[in-house]
């Protein structure tokens, strides 16, 4: 009976912790996802108490935003007054500045330390040569069998420790009330949120490591409570339910809102100006030479702009997994990774098979791969064994010294050398799609109907009309050296995998004649015979775009060459803008990509603050500075709103995760982020801890968010989603999707709608399906300020 209560309480208590993703597939998710059912303001206040953590931007960031004019003065004054803060913004800035958060001694130092010792040992994923004994019996049992030898705690015998975690928890918590038990669980789970978050991840993903070496939250709690009792640590600590400074929290929230409003006004202004521009130059539409589809990722915005102005190219934004809910099997090590959004269940399994007439190259490739594997094994073996460890150091030390000089002083040359010696497997292999679970059966291909559906949904969602001779699907991936957070720079829509394989798969499906035939006959989508689909990868660190064109027929040779040379030009100007240099920008980008001492190889999705859903025309000539996700959408071709609904259910939610993750990692890098990279210590091959050890880090490192220890790069703002579609259509989608509506009602994101049925008037979502019309009018030229008029114009649904 009590066991049931315990299980229930654990699952409820686990809401206080998020999920810690392994760094090899680092998904940026909301660390407070367990609080999403609560309003943002309340949720962060809870978190502040629970973790003793800053949950709003530091005052230094507010000050910077204020001085740079990101926060609109009138707007802020207005908001302050509305909330009975009657003094000047400067006064309140000073007031927020005077608050100090004392760094307390951790009363549970011993308990936390013992826990991290066992957790790190148990959860290791291959860093240690000698695994924790009895690991396969699960965390509790393995610990139980070993802790009797642990001299750091008072002597104990195996008979003293109950056989199951449930018995342990029950016997210790016997006598506590139900609400106390819940609070005890919360406290002990939140004590090490990084590690418990990783237990959460392992349980939910049921990874290979979890299957083999299971660990659950109840096992963690049992071990922790037992140890606490043994060493006389507190089982139930008293907490204060009061915010240390409710007034300051309120102030911070007001400043945040004013800052967000500043950005929304700026975005509205950019897009509105754009419309004026496009009206005048609408005329000349030349023959489009190529169409390129990029991920909605904020980094695509810059490269798209630069490609578009190099020729007659049209670009689109689409979620970077290209609509294929798949897992991808790595050719080299057989590891299967998710390659679609974490909120989507993988229906397909994609692997690589040799292209025709490539058997010789494939043999060579495979041999080479074997040799690389052997080399790694060989080195590890020599380093680990006695006495070869000593002989090996003496024989190889000189070579390590030389290589170290090269890597430090000449990283860009090393990259060139590496490139010469490696070849993309894409040129000799092709992707093959199967139903998930049937990967062994090669003949079992997926039905034509599903292939057609995958291709069709892409064109539907993007509002596609005509086809150019070349249509390129561009996935993206990052390439950086010595970077534990490398995967955080890969495609978020592919669960932190590079999106190239999804792109190649979609190109292959779209090229199939039987697919084209069904599209033409049943769906009225006419793909001209001369149109060829190609997969590609945008390297976001160097802005190089590699086309996987091994199978493109020779008829397209010239077009392809022209595109490639224009992409190279685009690369040059894009890197110039991104890195802020006029000369040698490509060399600099290459250096950043391959320098092992570089902690900021690229900025990933930092600065993200907006998500624009609409045709490219809305934004084509505006410089959005990489701050916006862009999804192509045409309200006119989407009569029923099905495409919009899919966009709102998928990409909007994924971008909300990303955005909230960036927000919390920025406002409190130590607790919700990863801290500084310079003192990171990789643990278990999947995570990092700071310095000598401690809690597992759960978020992005400082160097992904800040220009320096104190200077801001990412602006911690909640995401503002802008959709161009009839207001009624958006409203009806919200009515159908309670989850979306709750995110909006609780202010985890903002929603703005540009209603084409109403002269592209802007509306902002307010609570409970109410809309507020916003209007930005430019005042007299000299004055750069904008006056915001808000008409409390409630539109009924």
């Amino acid at each position: 009976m009590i066991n049931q209560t315990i299980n229930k309480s654990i699952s409820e208590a686990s809401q206080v912790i998020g999920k810690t993703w392994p760094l090899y597939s680092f998904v940026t998710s909301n660390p407070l996802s367990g609080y999403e059912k609560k309003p943002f303001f309340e949720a962060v206040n809870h978190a502040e108490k629970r973790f003793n953590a800053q949950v709003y931007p530091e005052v230094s960031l507010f000050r910077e935003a204020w001085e740079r004019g990101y926060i609109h003065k009138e707007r802020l004054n207005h908001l302050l007054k509305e909330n009975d803060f009657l003094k000047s913004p400067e006064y309140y800035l000073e007031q927020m500045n005077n608050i100090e958060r004392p760094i307390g001694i951790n009363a549970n130092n011993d308990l936390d330390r013992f826990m991290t010792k066992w957790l790190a040992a148990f959860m290791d994923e291959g860093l240690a040569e000698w695994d924790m004994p009895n690991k396969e019996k699960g965390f509790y049992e393995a610990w139980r069998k070993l802790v009797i030898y642990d001299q750091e705690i008072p002597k104990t015998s195996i008979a003293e420790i109950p056989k199951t975690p449930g018995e342990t928890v029950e016997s210790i918590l016997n006598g506590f009330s139900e609400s106390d038990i819940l609070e005890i669980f919360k406290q002990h789970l939140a004590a090490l949120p990084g590690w418990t978050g990783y237990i959460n991840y392992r349980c939910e993903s049921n990874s290979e490591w979890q299957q083999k070496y299971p660990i659950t939250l109840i096992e963690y709690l049992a071990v922790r409570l037992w140890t606490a009792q043994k060493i006389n640590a507190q089982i139930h600590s008293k907490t204060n339910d009061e915010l240390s400074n409710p007034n300051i929290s309120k102030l911070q929230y007001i400043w945040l809102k004013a800052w967000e409003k500043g950005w929304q006004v700026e975005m509205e202004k950019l897009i509105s100006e754009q419309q004026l521009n496009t009206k005048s130059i609408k005329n000349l539409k030349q023959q489009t030479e190529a169409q390129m589809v990029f991920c909605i990722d904020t980094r695509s915005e810059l490269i798209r702009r630069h490609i578009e102005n190099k020729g007659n190219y049209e670009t689109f934004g689409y979620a970077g997994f290209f609509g294929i809910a798949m897992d991808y099997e790595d050719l080299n090590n057989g590891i299967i990774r998710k390659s679609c959004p974490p909120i989507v269940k993988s229906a397909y399994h994609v692997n690589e098979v040799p292209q025709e007439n490539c058997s010789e190259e494939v043999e060579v490739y495979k041999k080479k791969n074997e040799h690389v594997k052997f080399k790694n094994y060989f080195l590890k073996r020599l380093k680990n064994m006695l006495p070869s460890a000593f002989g090996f150091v003496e024989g190889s030390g000189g070579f390590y010294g030389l290589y170290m000089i090269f890597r430090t002083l000449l990283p860009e040359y090393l990259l060139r050398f590496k490139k010469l010696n490696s070849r993309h497997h894409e040129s000799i292999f092709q992707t093959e799609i199967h139903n998930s679970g049937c990967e062994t059966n090669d003949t079992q291909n997926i039905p034509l109907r599903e292939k057609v559906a995958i291709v069709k949904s892409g064109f539907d969602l993007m509002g596609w009309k005509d086809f150019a001779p070349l249509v390129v699907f561009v996935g993206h991936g990052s390439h950086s050296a010595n970077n534990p957070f490398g995967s955080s720079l890969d495609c978020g829509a592919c669960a932190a995998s590079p999106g190239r394989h999804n792109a190649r798969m979609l190109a292959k499906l779209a090229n199939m004649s039987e697919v084209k035939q069904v599209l033409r006959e049943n769906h009225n989508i006419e793909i001209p015979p001369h149109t060829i689909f190609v997969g590609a990868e945008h390297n976001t660190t160097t802005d190089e775009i590699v086309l996987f064109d091994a199978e493109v027929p020779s008829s397209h040779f010239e077009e392809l060459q022209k595109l490639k040379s224009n992409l190279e030009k685009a690369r040059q100007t894009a890197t110039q803008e991104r890195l802020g240099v006029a000369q040698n920008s490509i060399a600099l980008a290459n250096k950043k990509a391959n320098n092992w001492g570089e902690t900021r190889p690229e900025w990933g999705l930092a600065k993200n603050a907006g998500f624009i859903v609409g045709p490219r025309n809305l934004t084509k000539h505006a410089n959005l500075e990489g701050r916006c996700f862009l999804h192509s959408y045409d309200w006119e071709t989407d009569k029923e709103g099905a495409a919009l609904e899919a966009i709102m259910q998928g990409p909007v939610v994924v971008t909300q995760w990303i955005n909230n993750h960036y927000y919390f990692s920025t406002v409190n890098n130590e607790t919700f982020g990863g801290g500084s990279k310079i003192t990171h210590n990789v643990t278990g091959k999947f995570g990092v801890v700071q310095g000598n050890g401690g809690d597992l880090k759960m978020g992005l490192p400082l160097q992904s968010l800040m220009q320096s220890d104190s200077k801001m790069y990412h602006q911690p703002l909640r995401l503002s989603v802008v959709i161009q579609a009839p207001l009624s259509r958006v409203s009806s989608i919200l009515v159908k999707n309670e989850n979306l509506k709750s995110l909006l009602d609780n202010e985890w994101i903002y929603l703005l709608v540009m209603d084409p049925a109403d002269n592209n008037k802007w509306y902002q979502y307010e609570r409970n399906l109410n809309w507020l019309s916003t209007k930005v009018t430019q005042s007299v030229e000299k004055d750069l300020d904008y006056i915001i008029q808000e008409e409390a114009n409630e539109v009924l649904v």
Partner: protein
Amino acid sequence: MKLKKQITNAISNAITYLLWLFFIANLSYLVYSYPNIPQWVYNDILKINGFTILIWTLVTFFSALIGSYGKNYLKGFKYHSKFSILCFGFTLSIMTFVMSNHIILLLITWLLMGVFMSMIIGVDSRWGEAKEAAKFALKYFLAGSIFLGTGMFLLAFSTQSYTLSEILLKVDALPKYLTIISGLFIITAAIIQSAIYPFHRWLLSAMTAPTPASALMHAGFVNGSGILLALFSTVLFASNTLIILFVIGGLTAVIAQFTKLIQVNVKQKLACSTIAQMGFMIMQCGLGLFNAAVVHLILHGFYKAYLFLSSGEAVRQEKPKKPLYITIKPIQALIVLFFGVCGALMFSFSTGKGLGLNSSIFLTLIVAITVGQVTYNIVKEQSLTLLQKAFLPPILFMSGIITYALMYNFVTALMISMPMVAEPLPLSALEVGFGVVFLIGFFMMKLGAYRRYPWLYVKLMNITQPYKKTILMYKSK
């Protein structure tokens, strides 16, 4: 604000360029005057010879390199310039140390090395655990300096000389008990610096230092004991305390290599490996082969600095796998044996050790086994062709032995003016006995026999935990 940033950058850059300049000057001088580096003496205080320049070259190399690395790595770090200045201070201390002839200067610079290193460990003064780690390390270094001071002053008072060179000349005339006591003090100072068991915990608690600082620590600080012992080799010979070095070093080498097996954090794993390598270096000293120890400290410095600087590469998705045990066919065993003997012969001739039955046989034996292990792993690898299997082992071990021999002969030539640094000892029963212990360790590891002892796992885990106040001591970072 902007100005401050510029100054920070300027300081760090200037220091890095200066260090590279030092390095190039030292290296050029070494190469140019090799092998006859003149000795230069200033009063009783300073003495510069080939060995001094060698260490200067080495330490400026590491400092300059981590300066260049840190230029990007530490960009934006609040204490970047403080870090650069501390590293520079450390570099100057070690440089002064190796040219000191007066014992007071020796003592002061030895202490300064420790002080600077502990300040680097705690360079981020916003971080409570880092400050604890710095304090903790400083205690060890202070103790080390006290031991060194006591040992040196004991010698100085009894010989009535205060310069190293004079003391060394008079050591043989001292009563045995005096040399033994001071020898023990100096040995203790050395093994504290090298984090030899049981003084290893400071090194395992020093990861609060930024990664490049760890590289410097493991390449240029912990191995300071090799230098110290080489300087005082005469005392150690006179007091017959070498055997202590041999046993402590050898034991640490074996134990630390076992502790490395269970480490789950990459930096702690590297630290365990360093402790093992330092144990090996101390053991080489114990064999009377101080020149070999110096070669080891140099090559290990390269190796370990590289591994620290690339420690971010350790993130990787893997599949759970069972440890695999490999068996070997008789014919393969024969090849292993053959190449092992070839390697041993090549090693002993290229380093001029010959085949005499003295303590150098230990090193020869280790080379032979290493070559055997190299061959063994290659011959049983299925993806390699017969031809590759035949040629890969000799190519690998030959290039390894040749680079080692080059370095060895170079260092030996530079140390020629120093007394008693390359004196192989006759083999004693104790050494042979310990050689057997070493072999048992090797077989235990090779056969994976340790896996049968869970208590050993816990023991190894506990002796390698960082000092408790350096993790999770404070509420936030």
